[in-house]
């Protein structure tokens, strides 16, 4: 039994770590195809990561320890979250008991804090610009994240994400309950914001659109590689939570060795999410920066209002 759990743990962890860049590559490639461009290879994120690994690390003058070690801390935090939530296998693995849903949300907040602290610690104006922008918006995004998980806890009477996944997969009607539908919409809006997708943030280094990219502006070499890898992991984790807990909780196997089927299942689910994201990214123009608060206020409204309504109705 212990060996099975160990195999499940390793499968889940290495799937997240190794496959997360691939999904980012597929999004970039598919987006280019829709825009009638050839586009980068789907393996481009891997090439970039390895290229950065070989490059020299340049540390800005006056930067502190947080700047230097933040990428490793972020990688560690996302590694832990990867074992807490059911993002590949719908059965608890090692380290799952270290936090519940709210603990996961707090770990996301911790990662955001570390990233912002590191951006300020670099003593660069550009990174400070990204950090200040992130701070202006994160107060609403973090609130949404927490209330969305409240909604999930309310539906299933538990704050264990694995039980939530199993409950929603077996109780079909709960998937069309008011709080679940609007929590799903709110979480999807949050997913677009947190992963820097259009219409909120244009990827690249255009100053007017920079938030996430702005914060990692001063990183280079190995540190940049690890920082980017953490970003891919964050995207995968948020996307997989959206798919397995909110949008499509069905289709995952926990038996041994049936759980190996979860890998192609997750791949297919992710392809569906990628198509939705690409449609949104190629349909909407970028929002003006100060409009992002309006967008996040809307997602927060969705998450909390219908949560309160559900309590009143119940």
């Amino acid at each position, binding site marked *: 039994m212990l060996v099975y759990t160990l195999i499940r743990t390793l499968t889940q962890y290495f799937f997240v770590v190794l496959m997360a860049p691939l999904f980012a590559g597929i999004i970039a490639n598919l987006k280019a195809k829709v825009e009638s461009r050839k586009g980068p290879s789907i393996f481009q994120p891997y090439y970039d990561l390895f290229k950065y690994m070989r490059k020299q690390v340049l540390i800005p003058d006056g930067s502190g320890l947080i700047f230097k070690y933040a990428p490793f801390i972020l990688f560690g935090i996302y590694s832990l979250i990867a074992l807490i939530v059911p993002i590949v296998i719908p059965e608890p693995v090692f380290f799952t008991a270290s936090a519940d849903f709210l603990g996961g949300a707090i770990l996301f907040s911790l990662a955001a804090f570390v990233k912002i602290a590191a951006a300020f610690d670099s003593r660069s104006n550009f990174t400070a610009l990204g950090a200040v922008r992130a701070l202006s918006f994160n107060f609403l995004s973090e609130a949404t994240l927490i209330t969305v998980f409240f909604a999930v806890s309310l539906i299933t009477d538990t704050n264990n994400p694995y039980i939530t996944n199993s409950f929603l997969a077996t109780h079909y009607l709960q998937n069309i309950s008011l709080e679940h539908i609007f929590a799903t919409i709110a979480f999807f809006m949050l997913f677009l914001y947190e992963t820097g997708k259009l219409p909120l943030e244009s990827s690249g280094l255009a100053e007017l659109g920079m938030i996430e990219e702005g914060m990692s502006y001063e990183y280079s070499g190995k540190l940049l590689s690890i920082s980017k890898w953490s970003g891919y992991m964050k995207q995968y984790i948020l996307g997989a939570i959206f798919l397995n807990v909110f949008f499509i909780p069905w289709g995952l196997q926990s038996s041994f060795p049936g759980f190996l089927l979860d890998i192609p299942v997750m791949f297919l689910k992710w392809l569906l999410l990628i198509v939705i994201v690409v449609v949104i990214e190629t349909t909407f123009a970028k929002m003006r920066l100060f*409009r992002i608060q309006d967008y996040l*206020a809307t997602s927060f*409204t969705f998450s909390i*209002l219908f949560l309160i*309504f559900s309590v009143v109705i119940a």
Partner: protein
Amino acid sequence: MIPVDYAIFLIAAFATISGFYIQGQEYIGSMVNGQLIQSSIIALISFVLAYYEHSLDLVILGVLIAFLRGFLITYFLDKRVPGRMTYVYETNVNVASLLLIDLAFIVVGIFIIYSLVFTRADLITKFGPSSILVFPLSLFFQGLFLIGSRRSTFSQIIGYIEEENSLVLFAIFLVPVPIIIEASVFLDVLALVVISSILVIEKFRHFPMEELRG
């Protein structure tokens, strides 16, 4: 098959969302369209309930809402929005703070109504206890907040219509359908819109100090 209460709750939730949509708009034209969407959603609720309850009254009610609120009032308001080439909008509309204050206003308002009134009044709705009335109440407070938060006469008229929409929704959820109340609300709103359309020409904006002058 989806149970009727799930379906009605979801559609009614979209009525509340349309209220937030109206609240977040700067352009008057978009607010009028938001009002049209809201009225159409309420008509849809009436039709869905008519289908489940096999009630002719609710079908008539739905048709009346769609025609009078969806079409006629929108037509009157649309006619009064100045010229096609000039876009009438309100300045200083901070959507994020408006949404959050509106949210707080709704939650506090509903909490007070439920804890002070509905716990004592024995209201029977089509879905048992008074829980579904949370949707018309949210619309009511949204209309109230729209009137309070905007200066343009158009926005204030739309806020009033939103309040009337909430009364209609309230009436639909109650058992039995008080159609006479509905008819009087229609006439009330219609008359108000006709009078207001004259008022809009005379006075487009309201400022707090002007209200205090004799």
